[in-house]
């Protein structure tokens, strides 16, 4: 079997066996001996001060070891910079147990540590906390007048603020032949990975800690812990080999990590702290956002004027931002634009990236507005997109590094059967249900970051490649193995990709759909460096056929090095390693993207979603009966895991459009449905026929692999397509997500 074609093969997940047998260990699965348990106590008020904590009842319970609060916590640094993690927005990071101030409802205010989990939980329920309450505001709609520009910082360099206005929007909109003006809203959403946030800290002594944490960045947590607790980086080892879902929730160190490590250092014991499901609603979330659009077009369907504004919540201590309004002009080349993005600080925790942050928010408004315009113009929604198709990103005045969105539109429409559509709303019925179809465009940017990897090959010909990166279920282990195997021309079974350990080479946090490109490029680079080293060794061998040969002239395939025109020159790489006196050949490499080159281009993945819904008008029940998403994301490393990523994104789209929403009681400043019974996500019975197709896309700019990542793009186009299909089915345009039956009755 040729080993040169590992990239593009539908390899089953290499950790599959561990996951189907229960052997995969997550952060709360390390039952170290002498383990004690911490249970977190959260504020029940929204804003104010803690006056007193009566611990007397709790301390009487046998098995309670210690109770930590702001009154007796470890000595902590007060410099903000020491609490700043890789994903911290501009502002002052939250410091758990720092003082008696309560900044939001659900803020962790104490940790009860006991010999067993049940005792810690019971004792936590006995704390009597006296507060002094202050007035607060948690409702975005009540504070719109306070909207202001976001602060600039590291985060806004990756998530650019809106471009300046172009042309004359007001005049162009005034003169437009067809117009749509919409207001869009969604409330808070919480990531709710199925794994509860948990940390198990092993107290190793000598100032050393081993920390099993639920995170999307082992180095991020390592640096945070070392900084906050004044430990040496090398003495803090954070492991996260299995992560039970992330979706952005693990991009920042969460407070259970801080509390667990603090208790371990104080008690000099092994400690586990696990959140309960309600506590999973007490940190970052997708922010409530209100958007307004005004799009104008000429009678022949050319969009001439785009106004898109968004106002989102943030906390009073950090300015979390998303890219919400920048996308419309990247997709549709109108010459008159007015884009605006503002924040309103509220008495809530800082929002956080949640799958397709900003993109899924903004595209809802943009693509529903385009859909509405298509009906105003009496032009098919897909035809309107094609009329306004641009090969160039007009908003940045740059070419795309690659853009096969047109192929997504055409192939997706073909597979879905879009041409059979009766354009008239309310025109189709199936039994007593109205049937509608809708479509939407998706776009997500491609981020390039530096990353390091190591590789070594032993005398058996087995290669081990390492990176500190996590695998949150995206298939990272599998695709990195494929990339390494293909680069080295060996079989997948001869490669081990080890990951999820801060001791391994530095990796950025796993998010933004960039892990394939960023870590994959580092893996390719280190394996190329390893090949060169193996080749140099091969040249030194007795009777080597490569004495006067250059590296670029040889081929690595099937575990051998050879000159393509001289098959008998072949030498197995294993024999080269055996010939090497040091037994293994190893190397490391930091891959640094060529920013000068890539910054000349706009880099984005694209998608087109086509959706059919059935609406029972008497009951208001909405079902997504079938959907096709066509994706252009460059090179697909593994079509099996990539397809699953897109399916997952589509199901998130169904959830976003029709199910999930964190409801707030704004009188109490408190989330109300903080459990999986009332925070609705789709169940198996809600999911019907879903289809994914990847279009061919060749990109030689973005990274060494030409791969764009597929984590968010499946979600980006799905939710608006559902809203548009509901309009086609019912004639009702509902711009508030999620769309519940009451909106249709």
């Amino acid at each position: 079997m040729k080993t040169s074609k590992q990239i593009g093969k539908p390899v089953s997940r290499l950790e599959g066996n561990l996951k189907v047998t229960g052997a995969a260990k997550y952060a709360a699965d390390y039952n170290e001996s002498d383990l004690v348990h911490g249970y977190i106590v959260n504020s029940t008020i929204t804003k104010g001060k803690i006056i007193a904590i009566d611990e007397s009842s709790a301390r009487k319970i046998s098995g309670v070891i210690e109770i930590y609060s702001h009154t007796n916590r470890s000595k902590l640094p007060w410099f903000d910079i020491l609490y700043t993690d890789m994903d911290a927005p501009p502002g002052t990071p939250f410091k758990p147990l720092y003082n008696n101030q309560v900044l939001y409802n659900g803020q962790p205010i104490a940790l009860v540590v006991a010999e067993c989990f049940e005792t810690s939980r019971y004792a936590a329920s006995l704390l009597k906390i006296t507060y002094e309450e202050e007035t607060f505001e948690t409702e975005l709609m009540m504070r719109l007048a306070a909207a202001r520009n976001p602060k600039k910082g590291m985060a806004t360099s990756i998530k650019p603020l809106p471009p300046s206005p172009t042309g004359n929007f007001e005049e162009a909109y005034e003169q437009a032949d067809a117009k749509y003006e919409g207001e869009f809203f969604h409330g808070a959403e919480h990531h709710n990975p199925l794994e509860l946030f948990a940390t198990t800290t092993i107290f190793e002594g000598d100032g050393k800690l081993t920390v099993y944490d639920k995170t999307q960045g082992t180095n991020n947590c390592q640096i945070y812990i070392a900084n906050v607790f004044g430990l040496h980086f090398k003495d803090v080892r954070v492991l996260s080999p299995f992560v039970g879902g992330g979706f952005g929730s693990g991009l920042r160190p969460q407070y259970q990590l801080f509390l667990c490590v603090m208790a371990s250092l104080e008690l000099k014991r092994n400690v586990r702290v696990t959140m309960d499901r309600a506590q999973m609603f007490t940190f970052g979330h997708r922010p409530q956002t209100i958007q307004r659009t005004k799009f104008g077009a000429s009678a022949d369907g050319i969009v001439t004027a785009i106004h898109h504004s968004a106002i989102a919540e943030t906390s009073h201590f950090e300015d979390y931002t998303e890219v919400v309004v920048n996308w419309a002009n990247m997709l549709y080349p109108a010459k008159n634009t007015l884009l605006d993005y503002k924040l309103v600080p509220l008495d809530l925790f800082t929002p956080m990236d949640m799958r397709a942050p900003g993109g899924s928010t903004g595209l809802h408004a943009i693509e529903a507005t385009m859909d509405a315009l298509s009906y105003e113009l009496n032009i098919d929604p897909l035809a309107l997109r094609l009329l306004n198709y641009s090969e160039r990103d007009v908003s940045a005045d740059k070419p795309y590094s690659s853009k096969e969105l047109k192929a997504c539109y055409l192939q997706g429409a073909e597979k879905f059967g879009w041409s059979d559509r009766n354009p008239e709303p309310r025109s189709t019925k199936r039994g007593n249900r109205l049937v509608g179809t809708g479509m939407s465009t998706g776009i997500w940017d491609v981020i390039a970051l530096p990353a390091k990897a190591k590789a070594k090959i032993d005398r058996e010909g087995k290669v081990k490649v390492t990176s500190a990166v996590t695998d949150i279920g995206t298939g990272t282990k599998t695709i990195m193995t494929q990339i390494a195997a293909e680069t080295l021309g060996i079989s997948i079974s001869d490669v081990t990709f080890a990951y999820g350990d801060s001791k391994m080479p530095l990796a950025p946090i796993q998010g933004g759909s960039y892990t394939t490109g960023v870590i994959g490029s580092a893996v390719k680079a280190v394996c190329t460096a390893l090949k060169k080293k193996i080749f140099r060794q091969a040249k030194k061998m007795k009777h080597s056929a490569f004495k006067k040969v250059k590296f670029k002239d040889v081929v690595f395939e099937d575990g051998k090095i050879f000159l393509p025109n001289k098959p008998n020159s072949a030498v197995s790489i294993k024999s080269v390693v055996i010939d090497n006196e040091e037994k293994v050949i190893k190397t490391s490499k930091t891959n640094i993207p060529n920013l000068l080159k890539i910054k000349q281009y706009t880099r984005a993945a694209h998608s087109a979603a086509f959706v059919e819904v059935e609406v029972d008008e008497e009951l208001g029940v909405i079902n997504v009966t079938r959907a096709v998403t066509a994706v252009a994301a460059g090179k697909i490393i593994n079509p099996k895991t990539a397809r699953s990523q897109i399916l997952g994104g589509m199901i998130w789209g169904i959830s976003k459009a029709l199910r999930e929403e964190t409801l707030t009681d704004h009188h109490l400043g408190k989330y109300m449905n903080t459990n999986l019974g009332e925070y609705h996500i789709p169940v198996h019975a809600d999911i019907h026929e879903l289809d994914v197709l990847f279009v061919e896309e060749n990109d030689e700019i973005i990274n060494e692999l030409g791969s764009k990542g597929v984590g968010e793009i499946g979600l980006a186009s799905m939710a608006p397509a559902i809203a548009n299909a509901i309009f086609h089915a019912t004639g009702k345009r509902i711009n508030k997500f999620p769309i519940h039956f009451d909106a249709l009755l």
Partner: protein
Amino acid sequence: MKAESTDRENNNDFNLTTSQVKLKINGNCLQLNVLPWVSLLDAIRDHCNLTGTKKGCDHGQCGACTVICDGNRILSCLTLAVMKNKSEITTIEGIADGDELHPLQKAFIKHDAFQCGYCTPGQICSAIAMLKEGKANTREEIKEQMSGNLCRCGANTNIIDAIIEIKNKGNYE
């Protein structure tokens, strides 16, 4: 000023005693001494050190803790260990026959029926017991009967494809 107080006053005499619970888990007879407030889930995970069974909500809402108890799928988080004295329990660690995976485990890998893997033990235990219940014959019925097991990654269609494959082959005993 507002005082938050709990109803649980006068707990000075708080005193629980352990009970002996005999369980046959994955064919092994175990004798546990557990306090009455220990859930079967925590007993399995912390006392038996079988951490394959997962806690996703501790409320009976997500299905991650599903185990097979005396032939029936149950939510181990809503069950106290002391309620199951002398029961026979199969957890995810007992589904395979030694190194030979159960057909459903193989089908899960083949159909990529998981991403993060956290709901997987519950999905597999639930599906095996569900098939034996014999109530679900169509894809729609299987989806309905499996709806107590949430998957946040969105592997839903792949999970149902895997279950249907082994149902059609009839090799789920």
